[in-house]
């Protein structure tokens, strides 16, 4: 493989996009742990039960926190309820978007689709664009020039990174893209992964979303109240984002680029049940990437099956950040640096493309 040139070009139409294709890193074959088909089939089986239970709790939590926040408004006692509401609105929707986008959370298709659309609106991710960007993320995970979901580009810009914890760059980008989409256009990067037949839907949804956002602002102005904009729209997306960014940045933070092995570019972190409820088990990220058909509620079992083939999981968020933060700092000066991963003895890393049939 030829040496990468630094700084890397993270656009999907630039120098590194051509390099990835030339080097066989695009659409390549990836390492998969040898899990018996029969066991995998058991783990892949779908059911509606766990996601219906979790969604009922989720809706009840929304109702309770919003209700108490409204009831106690404008007293300061409403603040804790807004903070929890924000986490539900701006953070728990990350995993709902993700799992329902894969179509694995529920067995029933319309349930996945409904929660997907709702979560996309709350986290401000254009549903059609993100469905396709995530498809590419799974084909070419952390391949520079191919993966549209590389969130920390190197060299690391620390201020921008901190701003992501409050969804500032994400929200600005979301509005910028909505305005591009209502003019009937996609960005050049989006054009590389959203097929022609899906584009009309992108434009339609941008119109609907902007109409909702402006309506909420209009209602706030009409009522002379902050409540509507604190409950719906970009504000809760932003003030509630920090939990999903905190957990989400552990997925690939500081790890290798341009490898064909999820054990080297993804991270599994053990988390407590509350975080795992908010995050719908996305902390089992190596497992999810290797076998995206396994629903979130079966990932802990898949983790057990894959243990012999994977590097040890990080034992906590603290443990993960203890390696991520120094790596980010180092990557400011040395963008070629990545956290090395120790694979279990007897398993080989897949770092180069292999000839496929």
């Amino acid at each position, binding site marked *: 493989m030829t040496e990468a040139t630094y700084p890397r070009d993270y656009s999907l139409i630039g120098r590194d996009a051509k390099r990835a294709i030339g080097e066989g890193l695009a*659409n390549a074959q990836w390492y998969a742990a040898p899990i018996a088909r029969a066991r995998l*089939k058991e783990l892949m089986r779908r059911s509606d039960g766990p996601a219906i239970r979790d969604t009922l709790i989720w809706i009840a939590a929304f109702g309770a926190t919003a209700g108490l926040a409204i009831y106690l408004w404008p007293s300061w006692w409403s603040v804790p309820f807004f903070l929890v509401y924000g986490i539900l609105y701006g953070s728990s929707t990350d995993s709902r978007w993700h799992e329902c986008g*894969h*179509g*694995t959370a529920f067995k029933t298709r319309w349930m996945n689709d409904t929660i997907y659309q709702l979560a996309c609106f709350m986290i401000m991710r254009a549903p059609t664009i993100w469905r*396709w960007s995530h*498809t590419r993320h799974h084909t070419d995970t952390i391949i520079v020039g191919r993966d549209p979901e590389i969130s920390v580009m190197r060299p690391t810009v620390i201020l921008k990174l901190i701003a992501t914890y409050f969804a500032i760059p994400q929200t600005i980008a979301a509005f910028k893209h909505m305005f591009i989409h209502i003019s009937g256009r996609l960005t050049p990067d989006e054009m590389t992964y959203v097929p022609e037949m*899906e584009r009309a839907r992108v434009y339609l949804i941008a119109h609907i979303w902007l109409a909702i956002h402006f309506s909420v602002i209009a209602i706030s102005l009409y009522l002379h109240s902050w409540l509507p904009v604190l409950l719906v729209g970009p504000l809760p997306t932003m003030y509630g984002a920090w939990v999903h960014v905190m957990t989400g940045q552990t997925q690939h933070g500081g790890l290798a680029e341009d490898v064909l092995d999820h054990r080297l570019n993804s991270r599994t972190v053990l988390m407590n049940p509350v975080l795992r409820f908010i995050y719908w088990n996305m902390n089992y990220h190596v497992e999810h990437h290797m076998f*995206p*058909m396994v629903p979130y509620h079966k990932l802990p079992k898949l983790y057990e099956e894959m243990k012999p083939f994977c590097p040890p999981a990080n034992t906590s968020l603290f443990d993960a950040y203890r390696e991520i933060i120094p790596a980010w700092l180092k990557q400011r000066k040395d963008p070629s640096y990545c956290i090395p991963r120790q694979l279990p003895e007897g398993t080989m890393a897949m770092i180069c493309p292999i000839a496929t049939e």
Partner: protein
Amino acid sequence: MTQWIKVCAQGDVANEDVMRFDHAGRTFAIYRSPSNKYYATDGLCTHEKVHLADGLVMDHIIECPKHNGRFDYTSGAAKGAPVCVNLKTYPVKVETGIVFINID
């Protein structure tokens, strides 16, 4: 000319499952539905050429292992993003416990 190709014994595909079958440089997916009927399609997903035999059969649906794209394997119909192109299907017959597909 009609060409019936022997694939496997009936029991080789588990109920509500799929099996890969390679023949003459081509690859196929052979399905056994919950109602014990056999079907065959091209073996690779029309999205990014991944083997569907590694996927999951749910009733009459095969879900691709790579991006969870879904096809109705009885008709080959693509059921929505990210799969947009239908799968080619092939006639299947079972005779004396042996599954055959008809490759034109």
